[in-house]
C-alpha cells in the first residue's frame, strides 16, 4: 500500500461533479504528476487531500490513517503540505516570518513560555530562525529575508511558498502549478530544485503543472484527469503518446 491512498473520491459543488470517483496511489518517495486541462479538477484534488473540502464519497488515507473528517491544520501536522496556485503568502509578514510561521506545528513552547519569553522560548525562537534561514538559502532567498513577502517578484514568491511548505516538515509536498508565471530559465531551475528537495528531505511530491517540460522532466509517474475523472495513468512517455490525453488537451484548448 502506498503512503497516500485515495479511493473512489467524489465531490460535487451543487450540480457540478468536480472530482468523480478518483483513485490515486503514491508510493513513498514518488515524484507524481497530476495533469489535465483547465478546470479538470486538479486544485480541487489538492483541496480534498488537504482537508479544505471533504469528499462526498470515497476515502483518503495517509500512511493508513484516514484523513476524511480532519481539519486542514491537523492534516498539515500529519505531514501533508502544499503551495497554492493563486499564491497565498502572509501579506504583512516578511519572507523570513512566512517561513518561521510554518514551524508552528513543531513548536515546543507553550503559552506561558511565550508570555514570559523565558530561556526555553528564546532558544526555540533562535532555532526556528536558523531553520528558516537554512530553507531560504536552499531557495536562494536568504538575501531578501527581511523584505515583505508580497513585494518579491512573482517567481520568488512561488519559491518562497515552497520553502514555507517545507518548513512544516512534510512527508508529502503538494505543488499547485509552481512554474506558473516563471520564465523558461526559472522553470528549468525549479525542475532541478524539486528533485533536489525530494532527495534531501526524503519527500513524496505530488505536482500539478501546466508546463509540460517541467512535468515530463520531473515526474516519474503521471495521472491525467479530465472533468474530474482519470483518463490516463503511466510514465511520462506513455502519457505523451496516449491518444486520450492528446484529445483532452486539444479538445480543451
Amino acid at each position, binding site marked *: 500500500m502506498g503512503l497516500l491512498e485515495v479511493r473512489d473520491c467524489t465531490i460535487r459543488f451543487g450540480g457540478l461533479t468536480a472530482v468523480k470517483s478518483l483513485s490515486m496511489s503514491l508510493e513513498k518517495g514518488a515524484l507524481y504528476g497530476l495533469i489535465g486541462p483547465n478546470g479538470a479538477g486538479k486544485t480541487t484534488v489538492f483541496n480534498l487531500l*488537504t*482537508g*479544505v473540502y471533504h469528499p462526498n464519497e470515497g476515502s483518503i488515507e495517509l500512511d493508513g490513517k484516514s484523513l476524511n473528517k480532519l*481539519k*486542514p*491544520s*491537523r492534516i*498539515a*501536522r500529519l505531514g501533508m*503540505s*502544499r503551495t*497554492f496556485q493563486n499564491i*497565498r*503568502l*502572509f*501579506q*504583512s*509578514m*516578511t519572507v523570513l*516570518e512566512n517561513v*518561521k*510561521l*510554518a*514551524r*508552528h*506545528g513543531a*513548536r515546543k*513552547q507553550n*503559552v506561558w*513560555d*511565550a*508570555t*514570559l*519569553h523565558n530561556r526555553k*522560548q528564546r532558544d*526555540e*525562537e533562535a532555532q*526556528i530562525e536558523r531553520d528558516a534561514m537554512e530553507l531560504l538559502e536552499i531557495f536562494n532567498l536568504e538575501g531578501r529575508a527581511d523584505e*515583505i513577502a*508580497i513585494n518579491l517578484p512573482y517567481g520568488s514568491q512561488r519559491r518562497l511558498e515552497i520553502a*514555507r*511548505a517545507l*518548513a*512544516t516538515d512534510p512527508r508529502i509536498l503538494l505543488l499547485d502549478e509552481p512554474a506558473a508565471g516563471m520564465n523558461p530559465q526559472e522553470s528549468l531551475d525549479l525542475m532541478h530544485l524539486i528533485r533536489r528537495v525530494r532527495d534531501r528531505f526524503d519527500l513524496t511530491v505530488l505536482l500539478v503543472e501546466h508546463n509540460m517540460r517541467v512535468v515530463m522532466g520531473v515526474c516519474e509517474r503521471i495521472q491525467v484527469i479530465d472533468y474530474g475523472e482519470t483518463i490516463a495513468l503511466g510514465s511520462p512517455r506513455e502519457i505523451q503518446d496516449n491518444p486520450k490525453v492528446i484529445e483532452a488537451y486539444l479538445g480543451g484548448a
Partner: protein
Amino acid sequence: MKRWLLWLGVLLVLAGLEASLRGLIGPYAYQITVLVGVNIILAVSLNLINGFTGQFSIGHAGFYAVGAYTSAALVKFGGPAIRGLVGFLPAIGQDAVLLLAGLAAAAIVAGIAGLAVGIPSLRLRGDYLAIVTLGFGEIIRVVILNVDSIGGARGFSGIEQLSNFFWVYFFVLVTIVVIHNIVHSSYGRAFVSIRDDEIAAEAMGVDTTRFKVLSFVISSMFAGIAGGLFGHFTMYLHPNSFTFVASFNVIIMIVIGGLGSIEGAVVGATVFTVALELLRKLGPFRLVSFAVLLVLIMIYRPQGLLGSWTLFKGRRKAAPKAMVV
C-alpha cells in the same frame, strides 16, 4: 536576573510617582491619568484580537464589566475573610493581597466568559464574533441590572478603594509586556497568520479556531483586570458605564492608534481619554465629534496614526486596513 532588577526599579519609580503625583498635578489630573491607564489596558488587550488576530469583537465592555463586578463583589463579600487570612501583614500589604485576589478573580471569570462567547462564535467564519460580542455586552448589562446584591440599577456602591496610580500603571506595564511577548512568539505569528490568510494559516498547521479563541480569551482576561482596577479606583460601578458606547470607545482608541500596533493602542487610548475630557464642554456633541474624527482617520489614515510602526523593530509592516462595522 537582570529583568528582575528592572521590575524592582519600575516598582520603585511607580511608588515614587504614586506618593507625589497627586500633589504635583492635582486630584483631577491624577484621576484622568489613572483613567488613561485603565483605557490603555483595554485598548492594548482589544488590539490583540481585533488588530493582531484580525477578528472583530465589539463587546469589550462586557468583559470589562464582568471583571469590574467580579472583583468588587469578591472584595466586598470575601474581603473580611481574606484580610483574616493575611492579618499578619500591615494594612498596605493586606490591601495589596485583596486587590490582587480581586483582579485574579476578575481575569479568570472574564476569561471564562471569553471562552464561552468565543468557542461557538469563532468556529464559524465571518463576523459572527461581532454579533455575538455585541449581544453578550448587552446581556451582561441586563443581568447586572437585575442582580440586587451587586446594586442592580442603583449601581454598586461602597466598593473598597484599593487601586491607584501605582497599581493601574503596574498592570499597564504587565499588559504591554505580556501582549508584546505573546505577539513576538510563535503564538503571535499564528495570530497574525490568521489575520492575513486563514486558509494558508490552516494549511501551515495553525489550528485557526483554537488560536482565535486563545487570542480572544487572553484579550478578555485583560479587559477583566482593567475592570477590577477601575472599580477599586472609582469605588462605584453602574451598568451604564458598560454600554455599547464603552465598547465602541475602545475600538475608536485602537483605530486612532492603528490596528495591530501596541504603541498605537497606547497612544490611541491616551489621546482619546484626554480629548474626551477636554471636550466635556461640548456636552453631547463630543460623541459626535469622535464619530467625525473616526471617519476622517479612516479616510486619510486608514492605518491609524502610527500604523503598524513598532518601536522594537523600527520598521513598518503593511498594516491591516481599519475595519468598522
